[in-house]
């Protein structure tokens, strides 16, 4: 039964279109987040409401293409206001964003409320642009949305190299002769387009999430821009589809919040569990580093027959050293076993090796030395390590 209600022609077309929007938003958002333009998109999104209302006033009908065009116009005005404030006043960037966002949304709210209060025919549906509602989207509208999304995605693929360059180091890009301002303008324009195209799916208040959350989630899994953009697109498309389906099943539930929560779920999993950058992995690494550090300190203290004056963590580690046969209780405190002494000697050797590297090749020391104090030969590239060894022999 549920499948039957879901699988009307219109629903399928709309779902496909919204999926395409999510996909493109994920791609554009990846570049916007890299370029630190994430919340400029939010200001633009809040600014769309006024344009939607104005377009409705001008045409007198609730036709999606006109409403979105109106939204795009005011979104661009909002962004222009933001740029103006940053350039010409001493208001700080964060305050400028919040200010433009609040005021432009206020204009939109005043217009929408005014229109609704005057009881113009068809005006009630305008509020759907606040939180997103795909129920009213027709197949024709969907085709428009999908076309815009595909166009935006194609532009991202075309301009990926340039956008990466500008996002990473705009000063270098400018010096190398790239038109940074034009690239930035194109990026912000794309953000504005995506914000507008995303309105039916997520609404003015939440459409930012489509641009921001997928790249943040994708960033946890990859260190490279092309795969970041791809992954972000996949997450965006999946979340948008989930939003359409779930809000179609639950009456009166707006699409936007569901889309956002779907994105957020993926993001939460990524931030927690991604293999390299994830919170759990970081925590585990930090614990290892701390334990290794403490162990080396304790071993050094025991080797020098100094008392281990440590805290609870030190004591726990001492117990583990005893359990693994590196240390043993002695008449006064503890002492190292033969294996323990070997380990202490090895660690002292590593330490000395790193100190020597710090003298002749400080950059290598900073790049590779971690709190575990690894054997330099295992972490530094062999050829470079040989050179450093030669250098430290020749340096008095």
């Amino acid at each position, binding site marked *: 039964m549920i499948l039957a209600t879901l699988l009307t022609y219109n629903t399928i077309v709309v779902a496909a279109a919204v999926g395409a929007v999510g996909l493109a938003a994920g791609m554009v958002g990846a570049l916007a987040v890299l370029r630190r333009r994430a919340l400029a998109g939010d200001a633009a999104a809040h600014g769309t409401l006024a344009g939607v209302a104005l377009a409705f006033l001008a045409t007198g009908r609730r036709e999606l293409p006109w409403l979105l065009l109106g939204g795009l116009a005011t979104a661009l005005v909002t962004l222009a206001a933001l740029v103006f404030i940053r350039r010409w006043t*001493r208001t*700080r960037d964060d305050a400028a964003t919040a200010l433009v966002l609040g005021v432009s949304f206020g204009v939109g709210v005043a217009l929408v409320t005014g229109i609704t209060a005057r009881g113009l025919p068809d005006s009630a549906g305008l509020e759907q642009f606040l939180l997103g509602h795909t129920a009213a989207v027709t197949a024709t509208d969907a085709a428009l949305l999908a076309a815009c999304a595909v166009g935006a995605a194609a532009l991202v693929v075309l301009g990926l190299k340039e956008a990466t360059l500008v996002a990473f180091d705009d000063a270098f890009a400018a010096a190398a002769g790239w038109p940074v301002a034009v690239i930035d303008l194109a990026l912000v324009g794309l953000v504005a387009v995506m914000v507008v195209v995303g309105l039916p799916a997520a609404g003015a208040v939440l459409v930012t999430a489509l641009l921001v959350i997928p790249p943040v989630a994708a960033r946890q899994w990859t260190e490279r821009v092309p795969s970041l953009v791809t992954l972000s697109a996949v997450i965006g498309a999946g979340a948008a589809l989930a939003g359409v389906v779930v809000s179609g099943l639950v009456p009166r539930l707006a699409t936007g919040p569901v889309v956002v929560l779907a994105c957020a779920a993926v993001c939460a999993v990524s931030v927690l569990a991604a293999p390299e950058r994830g919170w759990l992995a*970081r925590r585990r*690494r*930090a614990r290892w*580093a*701390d334990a290794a*550090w*403490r162990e080396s*300190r304790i071993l050094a203290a025991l080797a020098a027959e100094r008392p281990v004056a440590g805290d609870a963590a030190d004591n726990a580690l001492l117990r583990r050293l005893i359990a693994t046969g590196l240390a043993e209780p002695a008449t006064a405190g503890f002492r190292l076993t033969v294996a323990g002494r070997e380990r202490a000697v090895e660690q002292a050797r590593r330490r000395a090796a790193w*100190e020597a590297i*710090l*003298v*002749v*090749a*400080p*950059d290598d*020391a*900073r790049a590779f*030395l*971690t*709190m*575990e104090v690894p054997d330099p030969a295992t972490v530094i590239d062999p050829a470079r390590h040989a050179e450093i060894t030669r250098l430290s022999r020749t*340096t*008095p």
Partner: protein
Amino acid sequence: MTDSAGSGDAAAGPVVEFHDVTVAYSGRPVLWNVDLVITGPAVFGIVGPNGAGKSTLLKAALGLVPLAGGSIRFDGAPLAAVRHLVGYVPQRETVDWGFPVSVMDVVLMGTYGRVGWFRRPGHREREWSAECLRRVGLADLAGRQIGRLSGGQQQRVFLARALAQRARIYLLDEPMAGVDAGSQEMIFGVLDGLRAEGRLIIVVHHDLRSAASWFDGVALIDMRLVAAGPTASVLTPKNLRRTYAGQPTVLEELSRAVATGGRTP
């Protein structure tokens, strides 16, 4: 240094002790087992190449970054017990100079520790702050918004704020960065005055060239402590080579300057 040192004994000079201090950022050591005892009165420089962890050492002393290991004591006591005796001058770039406060407001901040919670600084604090401003030569700019000062003047305002604190030990982070020659002279003049009053002034300093002439004692730091002691015995060619291996020209100029007791160009 024994435990009897300092601990409230006002007659003895101020002392800062770093014991086995280790600081790490995301699993990488920034400071590595630094053992250092600095006794005052003195103007003491902490010198080393960029990224050597000099500023981190100060921040660790002030509890602004967590220690991975070790301990730091002021006059034999932990920071929490003697906080009002320790004055801090952060790097100039760390604050927003467009902030809506006047020069006087900033200097008054130095007195807040003594004024305590809930009370406003009164007439006495204002007079004392004005006196501190006079000592750094900015008395006539008291009412000005701090953004409308030159870099050197801003640094002097920070110094005046530290003076207003009446600390025993001052920690200054790169006070000479981006400061004109006139202000540098004035700042070191004020620091000399503080030493004469029996204080200990610890200055993180990036410029080896001027270190030789301005500091009584120096610690050379590059992740670990390379050497510490009276300036002439620390800034030796061998120590400098161990710290500035990658910068041979600076090195040669410097060892020559240290040898002749002069300054590098």
